[in-house]
């Protein structure tokens, strides 16, 4: 697809379009080192640090999914905790049926995707803020329904089975690895998704929805696909959350705080960039670790910070950094060059 655009524009001879890219060697070497280090982390760092890293990965997964929804497809969901919770409970259910909890993760993601599909037909009847609150109603409804199912622990909760025959350190290592792998799959998957045809359609919708529609982009189905993918991603996050904190409770798994965290993290890091949610998550964890003796202040400070960013620096910290230094670690856009090579306009 990108090839054909480049050709089409090139025929006019005025500008050339090329895929955003960078020196692949440095990135590749850096990525390999990072992957190796993070994979080996639980054997190298104290358990406390590994556990914090694990929570960090869970937040990165959620924020990346929220960023896909809001930053790329323009859907402000404040009900993604629905799929976090459903993912956690899918894992609990399958584990109760005797499946190894670690094996349940892809199934949890899949069941969230399947559940999300009919939900889109309800939610997509509303737009803007009404869509947002309706996602919250869906999450609330899902929590209340789960809370009535006795076998899943009802409102009081239930311990995840299938982890007790592992030693504590084995549990810690395996859940770390599961979380890390899911985070890696989600971030890399999002990167390739955005470089695909769907990514191009999303970019065109974001630039000008009417024009995209008239140019043949099926806006609604593109949004539907994104919503389902985000549901699956949040479901996977819920699944690894259930493994890492194995007492499963509706009010915890379906907590609105998940929505708040993924939203703030994406906004602060930068909506519409892959790096943004990761940068935002790092800031969030630094703040949370620094202020962990101070109760809810980290959320107050973080929420205020996110509001300020939304008003005065809407492209977020990473967006500001990128615009200043023309740097992208994970570029998904196209660059438009004038033939004289003087002007560069990032067309993301």
């Amino acid at each position, binding site marked *: 697809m990108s090839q054909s655009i480049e050709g089409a524009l090139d025929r006019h001879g005025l500008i050339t379009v090329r895929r955003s890219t960078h020196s692949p060697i440095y990135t590749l070497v850096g990525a390999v080192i990072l992957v190796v280090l993070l994979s080996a982390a639980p054997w190298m760092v104290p358990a406390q640090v590994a556990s914090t890293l694990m929570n960090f990965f869970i937040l990165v997964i959620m924020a990346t999914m929220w960023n896909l929804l809001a930053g790329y497809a323009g859907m402000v969901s404040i009900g993604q905790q629905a799929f976090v919770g459903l993912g956690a409970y899918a894992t609990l259910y399958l584990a109760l049926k005797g499946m190894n909890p670690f094996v349940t993760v892809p199934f949890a993601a899949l069941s969230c995707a399947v559940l999300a599909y009919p939900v889109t037909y309800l939610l997509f009847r509303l*737009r803007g803020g009404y869509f947002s609150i309706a996602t919250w109603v869906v999450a609330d409804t899902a929590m209340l329904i789960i809370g009535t199912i006795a076998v899943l622990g009802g409102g009081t909760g239930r311990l995840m089975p299938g982890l007790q025959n592992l030693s504590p350190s084995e549990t810690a290592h395996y859940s770390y690895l599961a979380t890390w792998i899911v985070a890696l799959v989600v971030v890399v998957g999002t990167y390739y998704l955005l470089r695909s045809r769907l990514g191009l359609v999303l970019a065109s919708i974001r630039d000008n929805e009417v024009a995209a529609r008239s140019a043949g982009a099926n806006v609604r189905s593109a949004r539907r696909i994104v919503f389902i993918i985000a549901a699956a991603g949040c479901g996977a996050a819920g699944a690894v959350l259930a493994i890492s904190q194995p007492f499963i409770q509706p009010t915890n798994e379906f907590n609105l705080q998940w929505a708040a965290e993924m939203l703030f993290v994406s906004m602060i890091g930068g909506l519409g960039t892959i790096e943004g949610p990761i940068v935002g998550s790092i800031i969030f964890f630094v703040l949370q670790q620094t202020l962990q003796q101070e109760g809810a202040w980290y959320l107050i400070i973080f929420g205020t910070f996110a509001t300020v960013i939304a008003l005065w620096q809407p492209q977020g910290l990473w967006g500001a950094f990128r615009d200043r230094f023309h740097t992208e670690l994970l570029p998904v856009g196209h660059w438009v060059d004038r033939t004289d090579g003087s002007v560069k306009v990032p067309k993301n």
Partner: protein
Amino acid sequence: MIWLNVIIQGILLGGFYALFACGLSLMFGVLKVINLAHGDMAVVAAYVAVFLTPHLHIPELWSFLVVVPIFGVIGYIGQRTLIQKSIDRDPFTTLLVTFGLSVVIENLLLEAYTANGQTVTIGTLITKSWHPTSIIYISYLSLMVLAVAVGVLALLQLFLSRTGTGRLIRAVADDREAAQLSGANYRHIFGIAAAIACATVALAGIAYGMMTQFEPTSGGVNLLFAFEAVVIGGIGSLWGTLVGGIALGVAQQFGAHFNPQYQVLAGNVLFLLVLAVRPQGLFGKRTALA
């Protein structure tokens, strides 16, 4: 007779939801803004009523005389600064900003007043009720709240249709640009609409605090109920909001009649049903639909 009581309780509850929802409806109708901090502002009003009025030596029942005007002013100022700034960016930003506010308000309340439940004390009024039969009971307080809701909606209706400023508010809601061409400073009109919305929110919050215990995080669930009332009744219709609130209240009471666990669920299910079958709501225009 049991069912009659269920319906009566539902109507009484619906009055409260309508009171809660009319500010949300007004904000959306005029400013096209969904205030995600709507519920939290109501809770703040309830906290102000509990913690401020003792200093003023007035009964908490009458605290609204002080709190409502304060919130009107807060609404105007908040609109002219923060909310206008985000409207100038885009609708997307208003959602992010009001959600950010919501989380910040909840956690500030948590830090200031802990998670303990509070109530607006109104003495013996809370227990007084009317028993026309042995099964039916009508709480005076709930009846009062329903009356206030109807009164507020009627006043609002009168204000919007009979006064010059009210007409300007409707003009801005209809066509912001054309209203400017008729000499309306739309930012000022937005401020007035937000002031009214905030005043009704304060009233609803104090009523809530009288009816039940509240805590810092009570705002969220009330925003959901207000929102459900607006959508069920029909987006953009003032009296639809009352009908929507009552429909929601009745549905919840029916749910609760079977199992207290089902109260909120029944309301959500009604909401989702309306969305599936009649997305414009009972009295609505199709403006908020995709």
